[in-house]
């Protein structure tokens, strides 16, 4: 159980059904956003992948962070499809590897693990900040969490800071011109729409805050 500073594998395992739940609630909205600047499947993709990940996790019963990351990553990669599948898959794989083969993470470790996940998205997708992708929610979130951590925030504070920054980053994608993914084909016309991937990334962090440090 979360004691305010430690993140256990059980906490991580609780994160995924919650993420799946909020994705389910927002699936139509995500698909809606993707139909404006993409191909109208982001919500469907994410819902399918999250459900599968929940089942996979229940079956895998991981005992360490690496095992957790690997179990989800493989499932996400093989069920989400599209651009977001390999990206979120890489996120969980790197998170797990960095989190290590211990049953819990302490102090700065959870944030380092999240950061490794985000960096994996960046190196797989080769997007830059401002390209109007999920990175525009995730990178500011990492920065905010690192700042909050330095300021001595509790894990709950840190994750809340990350969620807030992700939400702001997500909203900031609205005026951006897309340079990566399907939305980039729209050029100027991508302006004025919020990025679906940034939106699901905010939900990822929000559900982390809710479950890792409740």
């Amino acid at each position, binding site marked *: 159980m979360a004691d305010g500073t430690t993140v256990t594998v059980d906490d991580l395992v609780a994160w995924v059904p919650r993420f799946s739940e909020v994705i389910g609630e927002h699936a139509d909205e995500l698909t809606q956003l993707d139909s404006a600047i993409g191909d*109208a499947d982001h919500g469907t993709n994410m819902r399918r992948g999250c459900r599968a990940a929940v089942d996979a996790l229940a079956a895998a019963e991981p005992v360490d962070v690496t095992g957790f990351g690997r179990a989800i990553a493989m499932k996400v990669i093989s069920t989400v*499809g599209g651009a*977001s*599948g390999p990206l979120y898959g890489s996120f969980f794989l790197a998170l797990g590897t960095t989190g290590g083969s211990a049953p819990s993470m302490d102090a700065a470790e959870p944030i380092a693990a999240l950061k490794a996940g985000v960096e994996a998205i960046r190196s797989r*997708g080769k997007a830059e900040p401002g390209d109007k992708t999920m990175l525009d929610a995730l990178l500011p979130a990492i920065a905010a969490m690192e700042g909050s951590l330095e300021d001595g925030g509790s894990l709950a504070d840190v994750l809340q800071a990350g969620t807030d920054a992700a939400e702001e980053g997500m909203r900031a994608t609205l005026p951006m011109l897309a340079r990566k993914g399907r939305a980039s*084909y729209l050029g100027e016309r991508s302006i004025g729409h919020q990025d679906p991937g940034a939106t699901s990334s905010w939900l990822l962090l929000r559900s982390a805050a809710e479950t890792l440090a409740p």
Partner: protein
Amino acid sequence: MKKLINATDDVVVEALEGMERAHTSLKVVYDPKYVVRADAPVAGKVGIVSGGGSGHEPMHGGFVGMGMLDAACPGEVFTSPTPDQMLEATKAVDGGAGVLHIVKNYTGDVLNFEMAAELAAADGIDVEAVVIDDDVAVQDSSFTAGRRGVGATVLAEKICGAAAEAGRDLAAVKELCERVNANGRSMGMALPSCTVPAAGKPTFELGDDEMEIGIGIHGEPGRERRPVASAAEVAKMLVEPILADLPYSEGEKALVFVNSMGGTPLIELYIIYNEVAKILAEHGVEIARNLIGPYIPSLEMQGCSITMLKLDDEMTELWDATVSTPALRWGA
């Protein structure tokens, strides 16, 4: 939404079941999903695997067979397939001469095929990939994900399939595929959009007198919206950017592929082809081969795309070679 389906979640699997029942030359594997030649692997032959979102049928499953693809990996509708599919398909078709992945340049396809190739390489299979990016509607710059892969994919699959069947090695088939891509250009347009079954309503809405120029094949909007125009004008809007991007010298030969986006009937494709032929005659381009029909559609979207491939003798000969698939069949 009105569609001849059962549940939206079952669309892809049930269509695969239908394909399997209909075509004894194919085998369908369901977990993970891929369509493969019943006689795979063909010993000593380079295997060719493609794949992508569903909703573009006959592409790619309908192109599996002698002289074309060895296997195809269908994703959900308009969604890339996943690496486990390509990995298993790659293993299934590897006849010892290596496997070529033909990938359309969509971020999702590229990332998923990349992961699959890494996994296959780890399993000791010789894998090469060619990314097709023939859509001139998209500006190819560091500020975009690059040109999309569209109509040239069909032509690359046919021509490379013939080369593999003729016994060329992996490097040669890959080089040929890059050559087809380098010489292929496409551009498409839509009148109304289409409806993804799981989304339930059209991907984009067009006014009664609007059309969308420069669309891709995933139902996504395109380069610009314009008032609807005549077939002659539409042909011009599609052919001119192609020729601007890859000029033809007097007497150079082209394969012209006029594709229906799905809901545009053949009678209209012939009208478009007629206009294209007139424009090309003015430019002194000889149409040496053609393909006309819904070979890479976007569900029931109305509209068309035009692909031009600058032909050399080798490509022409490989295009003419025997092919026996559900969707393209001649000489067999």
